[in-house]
């Protein structure tokens, strides 16, 4: 086989990706990490970043919220991106690689680009895989991932807090019948990834009853899809007779589920109380802070994360760079809260989720990377220096994190020292 310059460059990059670890930043990029872990800034002061993915040669692809996609390449192995190119347009959130195809979503469509081995960014125009997905602004990000069946799973979120009609998010909001609404919103649909110009109607309606999820990820251990879902806001605003400011700050959980065909996660009727570990009725549907949902009607979450932390992207860790306990676990980036006000805001971190040998979460989680915000007390998201959004695992087992606030990309490595 004749080796072209592009192929040679790709092979060199792959060798670099497997090679020695770069030197971390002296301050670990400002992060607080477990012992033996270090961090460095790969790129900084880019546009506001969303979800990300890493190619087999170590090239990073990061969505921007409002513009194109960044391709980032480190050509000399120092860990810093020395080639940064932006391509595409339309902003959005979802991004995933499948062979030489880079799939990405705006809030309206799903596109794919053909990548050329050795080249950082695609040369040609994108192909539109899915068009004209529902978009009513609120919760319009279109998370996507490939399933073990090879199909492309894409979310359409619910443009709503708790389907409270015109008074949604306000005092006295009353829930409406969501039956028709949920035929279009609040679920995942799966599609043929090689068929172009599909519409939502061409998809298989896979799951329903969730408010909004910006991440879905395939666990390679057991082939199951896992999602983290953003819980509702403003319980005390809607029903102050039942919920205090503190109740709202601690409710409901950001839930973590395994997604199966036909799953119904219970929104908008119910929410998960992380302190009581119970599913309760939303006040828009007769809840009073105590009334429980019908037992067994909806699945319990595998994990109930603290309220309002905003889970953005999930990445499984198949690597071997990190200590053995991390292998086949997952990392989840939390954007950090806004709806705990007037209580201090929380989240703003990356957590590690241990999984068992069967590929299911143990139910625990631990903070892995912290201090993105750079402050101990945060009253508003504007106070945070950085906000974790995307997370992805490199071919050498390094963990990458993107930042929506100031466009920083972090690389976290393990040296054991």
């Amino acid at each position, binding site marked *: 086989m004749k080796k072209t310059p592009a192929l040679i460059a790709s092979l060199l990059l792959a060798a670099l990706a497997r090679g020695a670890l770069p030197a971390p930043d002296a301050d670990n990029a400002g992060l607080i990490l477990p012992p033996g872990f270090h961090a460095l800034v790969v790129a900084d002061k880019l546009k506001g970043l969303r979800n990300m993915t890493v190619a087999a040669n170590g090239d990073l692809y990061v969505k921007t919220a409002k513009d194109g996609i960044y391709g980032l390449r480190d050509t000399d192995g120092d860990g810093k991106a020395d080639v940064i190119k932006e391509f595409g347009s339309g902003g959005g959130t979802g991004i995933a690689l499948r062979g030489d195809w880079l799939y990405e979503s705006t809030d309206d469509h799903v596109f794919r680009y053909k990548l050329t081995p050795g080249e950082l960014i695609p040369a040609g125009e994108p192909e539109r895989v899915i068009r004209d997905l529902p978009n009513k602004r*609120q*919760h319009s990000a279109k998370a996507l991932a490939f399933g073990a069946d090879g199909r492309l799973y894409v979310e359409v979120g619910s443009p709503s807090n708790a389907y409270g009609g015109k008074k949604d998010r*306000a005092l006295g909001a009353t829930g409406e019948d969501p039956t028709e609404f949920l035929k279009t919103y609040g679920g995942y649909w799966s599609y043929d990834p090689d068929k172009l110009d599909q519409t939502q109607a061409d998809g298989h309606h896979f799951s329903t009853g969730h408010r909004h999820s910006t991440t879905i990820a395939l666990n390679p251990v057991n082939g199951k899809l896992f999602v983290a879902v953003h819980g509702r806001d403003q319980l005390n605003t809607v029903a102050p007779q039942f919920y205090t400011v503190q109740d709202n700050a601690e409710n409901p959980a950001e839930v973590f589920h395994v997604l199966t065909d036909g799953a119904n996660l219970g929104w908008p009727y119910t929410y998960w109380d992380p302190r009581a570990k119970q599913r309760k009725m939303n006040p828009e549907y007769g809840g009073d802070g105590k009334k429980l949902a019908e037992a067994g009607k909806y699945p319990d979450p595998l994990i109930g994360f603290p309220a309002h932390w905003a889970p953005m992207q999930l990445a499984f860790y198949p690597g071997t760079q990190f200590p053995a306990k991390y292998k086949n676990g997952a990392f989840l980036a939390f954007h950090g809260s806004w*709806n705990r*006000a007037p209580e201090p805001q929380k989240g703003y971190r990356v957590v590690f989720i241990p999984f068992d040998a069967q590929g299911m979460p143990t139910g625990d989680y631990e903070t892995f990377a912290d201090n993105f915000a750079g402050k101990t007390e945060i*009253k*508003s998201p*504007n106070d945070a220096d950085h906000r974790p959004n995307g997370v992805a695992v490199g071919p050498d087992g390094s963990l990458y994190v993107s930042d929506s606030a100031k466009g920083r990309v972090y690389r976290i490595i393990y040296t054991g020292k």
Partner: protein
Amino acid sequence: MKRFAGVVLILTLTACSKQEPPPAATPDPAATAALLKQGEEIFQNTCATCHMADGAGVPNLQPSIIGSGWISAQDPQLLLSLILRGSAILGEAAKAYENDMAPQDHLTDAEIAAVASYVRSHFAGTPITVPVTPAQVAIARNRPGLP
């Protein structure tokens, strides 16, 4: 800033309503202080959850209200309409943010007067110290749409 261009135009074209009752000539300082205190409490309980206690909003989700044209106008009628009817009255401008503002018409005229007085004194480009009255809120509530 584009967001407020249309608002400025509307404000320029909108004279004080003929129904407008004249503001009190010399507001009682103690009464004004009490009104602003009440307004601050309503703001913290009702508005700050989205706009944040410092009024700076949340990027992409809810706007900053600091220096907002809706708040900084001498005539409070546009602001009162926004509070009463929510962001639906903003039309295309509302699409700059993900979340809609629901109508806050469950608040009484006195409560809206208090919170409007507070935000005008606290977040207007140039603080407006003339209190908003319940009568002005009643006019906004009874009007079918924007002034």
